[in-house]
């Protein structure tokens, strides 16, 4: 039942927030997301004691086609649940003291989004998973459409259609597998153990499924919706997208690609891996010359997730664990970065780098915390991203030395664009836009302070995360290696 509670609490909270009215919505949302986080901690404790048995749920739902409420939590799912529920309260808190119209709807949508994404991470039935996958698109679409920037209509439409189109391909793939399954179900355990799908079929199935995830993550060249959407969405939308939603794509590579079409992965994995790593360098190089804060961060995120996805396709334990660790690290860091961007844009009214500068003179506390987040994202040792990047790059190295050299450029290029961004915004003399910059409020300090602590804690002692996911990743790796 634990699983159901975790899943449904945000849904309930969403409805309550909607009913509560604009005045109390934000505080209620924060309260429920904090409760959800506590519940998650409790779940983690149970999980470390009793394993995944208490979390498994199996109910018949629709008999023909056979779809069941098949949910569960293994190490990887739990990591994603922790990630979602850890980031969500921060996202909600980040919206405090911002003038948001129709706040009750806004927070209801955020919580609904949390619910849908949790559904993705705990579903072990293909169609159920697909329903949640699509369900998660709806709230973010409305968040971007109703609270976004000037070009929001065109941009969100493109984003919506793009990701939806990808998902439909995946659905086709799933339906085919359903027919191939002698029991005719979407059950993950059955689909990941099918032996009758020839590699000729897996070859095209790979692409149907992969493209859906590649768009969501995104992997170059399926990324052109991203920068626009990130910069047009309201901050919380961008955080949801970059912090949690794109991890749906990476998680799904683990869960719904590798074990499902292992022969397809064997055939096309190297190509996908190459795309990922090209994307790492490609996006970094673009980020170097960006003049807009949010777009710069969008491209930096694109670069980072390219490396995470690469870790999935190298098919070794270092790369895969690196990917898992880095999913959490990236979620924390990217939310921190976009929050810093939001703080700057909110106070100065511009995201144009060249109009900023010198903020450090007037906001020392903000400077320190922003610096820590930047250090996290350039993967300095003792920060969370270093663990991930080390494991990922070693995973890539184990696969191929030259690819690792190329991917390793990220540690140089990352420093180039991040320090450039930091220098232009924070250092030097103040401009007319930044002269009146107020230092952080209490809410803002709490969010960024929490993020800073998380950056160090998971960077100095990552062992619990590694131990949480290791057994699951081994199962997935073994399935993926059987062709």
């Amino acid at each position: 039942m634990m699983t159901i509670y975790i899943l449904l609490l945000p849904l309930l909270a969403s409805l309550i927030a909607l009913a509560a009215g604009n005045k109390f919505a934000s505080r209620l949302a924060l309260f429920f997301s904090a409760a959800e986080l506590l519940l998650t901690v409790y779940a983690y404790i149970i999980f470390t004691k009793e394993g995944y048995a208490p979390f498994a749920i199996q109910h018949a739902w629709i008999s023909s086609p056979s779809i069941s409420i098949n949910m569960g939590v293994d190490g990887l799912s739990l990591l994603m649940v922790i990630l979602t529920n850890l980031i969500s309260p921060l996202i909600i808190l980040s919206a405090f003291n911002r003038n948001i119209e129709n706040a009750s709807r806004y927070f209801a949508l955020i919580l609904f989004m949390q619910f849908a994404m949790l559904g993705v991470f705990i579903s072990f039935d293909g169609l159920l998973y697909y329903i949640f996958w699509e369900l998660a698109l709806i709230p973010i679409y409305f968040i971007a459409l109703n609270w976004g920037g000037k070009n929001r209509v065109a941009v969100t439409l493109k984003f919506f259609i793009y990701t939806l189109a990808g998902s439909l391909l995946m659905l086709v793939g799933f339906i085919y597998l359903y027919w191939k399954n002698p029991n005719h179900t979407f059950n993950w355990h059955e689909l990941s153990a099918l032996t009758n799908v020839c590699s000729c079929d897996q070859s095209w199935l790979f692409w149907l499924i992969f493209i859906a995830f590649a768009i969501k993550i995104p992997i170059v060249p399926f990324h052109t919706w991203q920068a626009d959407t990130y910069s047009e969405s309201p901050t919380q939308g961008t955080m949801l997208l970059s912090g949690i939603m794109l991890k749906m794509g990476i998680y799904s590579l683990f869960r719904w690609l590798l074990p499902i079409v292992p022969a397809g992965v064997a055939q096309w994995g190297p190509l996908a891996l190459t795309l990922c790593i090209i994307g790492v360098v490609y996006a970094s190089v673009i980020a170097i010359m960006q003049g807009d804060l949010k777009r710069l961060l969008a491209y930096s995120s694109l670069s980072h997730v390219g490396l995470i996805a690469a870790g999935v396709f190298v098919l070794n334990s270092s790369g895969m664990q690196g990917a898992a660790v880095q999913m959490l690290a990236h979620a924390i860091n990217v939310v921190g970065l976009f929050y810093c961007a939001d703080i700057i844009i909110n106070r100065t009214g511009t995201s144009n780098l060249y109009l900023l500068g010198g903020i450090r003179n007037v906001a020392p506390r903000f400077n320190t915390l922003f610096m820590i987040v930047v250090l996290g994202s350039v993967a300095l040792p003792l920060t969370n991203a270093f663990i991930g990047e080390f494991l990922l790059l070693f995973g890539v190295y184990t696969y191929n030395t030259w690819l690792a050299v190329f991917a390793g450029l990220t540690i140089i290029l990352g420093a180039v664009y991040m320090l450039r961004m930091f220098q232009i915004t924070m250092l030097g003399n103040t401009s007319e836009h930044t002269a009146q910059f107020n230092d952080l409020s209490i809410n803002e300090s709490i969010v960024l302070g929490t993020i800073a602590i998380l950056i160090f804690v998971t960077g100095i002692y990552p062992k619990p995360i590694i131990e949480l996911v290791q057994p699951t990743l081994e199962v997935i790796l073994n399935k993926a290696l059987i062709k």
Partner: protein
Amino acid sequence: MNNLLQDTALIFPALLIPLFPLIGFMVNGVFGKYLPKQITGWLASLAILGSFICAAYLFLNMNKGSNINIDMFEWISFAHIQIGFGFLIDPLTLIMLLVITGIGFLIHLYSISYMHEDEGFTRFFTYLNMFVFFMLLLVMGNNYLVMFIGWEGVGLCSYLLIGFWFKNNAYNNAAKKAFIMNRIGDLGFLLGMFFMLFYFGSLNYDVVANEAAKLGINNSLITITTILLFVGASGKSAQIPLYTWLPDAMAGPTPVSALIHAATMVTAGIYMIVRSNVLFALSPITLEVILIVGILTSVMAAIIGLLQNDIKKVLAYSTVSQLGLMFCALGMGAFSSGMFHVVTHAFFKALLFLGSGSVIHALHGEQDIRNMGGLAKYTKVTFYTFFIGSLAISGIFPFAGFFSKDEILAHAFQENIVVWIILTTSSLITAFYMFRLVYLTFFNEFRGTEDVKKHIHESPALMTIPLVVLTILSVIGGFMGLPEGLGFTHAFGNFLSEVTAPSLPYLKQHQHLSHATEIGLMIFAVVAALSMIVWARIKYVKNKELPAADESLTGLNKIISNKFYVDEFYNNIIVKPITVLSDLFLVLIDKLIIDLAVNATAWVVSATGKTLRLLQNGNTGFYVFAMVIGMIVLLLIRVIL
């Protein structure tokens, strides 16, 4: 756990060594703004003093041959590989600890006075403590990954300190450049670690050395690994081609330069290679590469130093040059000699930088030696200490630099006479430009404005005491490494021998030079250096020559004065192409090709939709017909499959 077997009386102070600066950093970082300024400075200084006392305690109480190894916790693990977080203290670490904390403490002390007017006083000491903390981590780690924490950590601190005056964007650029250049080296280090981890299954120093020894000499795997590590070392220790950040690092406050150039940061690369001496000894090719790079760096930097007019720039290029000399020693397999020069260099380079700070302090920020002159009579302590420091770096007997430099040159003489000639030349150039600096700064009449002249003053005691201590060290420091060839005991080499001994079997062994040759070489070196000093004296004191104004330089002088245009070269072949590429990627590939393809796909779909919509014409008969056809098709598919 072997910890329990070890004497806790040693483990506890060992753990305190990095803990003191960490606490100092945290206290000043968090509560610094609520504390009086002076307190924060003293707090930071005392933290380093505490570390120094602990290090000295270990030095006095550790038995020969018994290292301290402390495994703290498991840090990163996957598959069968576990990388721990732990400390190792052996003679090599001890030497580094004493240098870092000892000289670090003097620099802290000096800074209390030097920085007292700066509004970022507390911030300065916070960074300084953090810098020392990471440097201690670097030398105390018991595996390469812990070393790498310190390695990147000092990179960060140098970034923060070089760009300390963050309102000035030129300084910020220098800081960024230092970080990025170091990162280029770090990538090499990282890849080197991957090779070790993959082929040896561990990053622990002893395991790596043992496994590597099994592969034997001249194994290409080890060659690649060591070359990659050397790339890392050349970033941190400012060797060609990654040296250009170090002269720019002058942007930071002068005590920072002393810290970076003497006690921390640049010594890291040398430390790393000495730490991996077995690995490097197994690869003669790498040693050859190191030797060549060291020679080139040493000479090139010395030549550039000849025509610099900023007092700190001259010293900066002399550091690059001296580091080149140290790398030459490493390249010849003389690991202990390289370390010896690290230590003596730390004494006199810290002295020279702090001395230059005292000069700059006296002149209210003036750094151009063309505007100085005659300071000897105003700032006596600074003058005498600086003078002795210059004698030491020039290799004049019996100052510290003489012994360590002589040792390296003697190795060079045995290795290859050409190497010896080049390195000797480079040393002589050093002697010349150092005294060019001394004479232009301290002799003749003051050339600056009257206004500045009125205010020239000697620095306060807090600044001069460290100068005096460092001067004493620069005078006597060399005696811990008396030449063995002349029948003396080399205390330094003996102390370190436990660390360097395992690599001996793989290195070319030379006979000791005959006494006559060795003494002959020494006399030659000293006489030649002295004649350089005399030449500089004639030129700048007697003839009162002044370096020409920058605009009037032509030909070779102009090229040298502009540092061979290396920065411009890098700018043109790396920086500019990347910016062009960046625009190209965004405009051409992202916007034009990919997005066009995406939109085209969408257009095709929507056009198809418009066409297919015509089928939905409301004719029920047609729908039924279509449905039947569809069912037949589906049935056929089921049958066929």
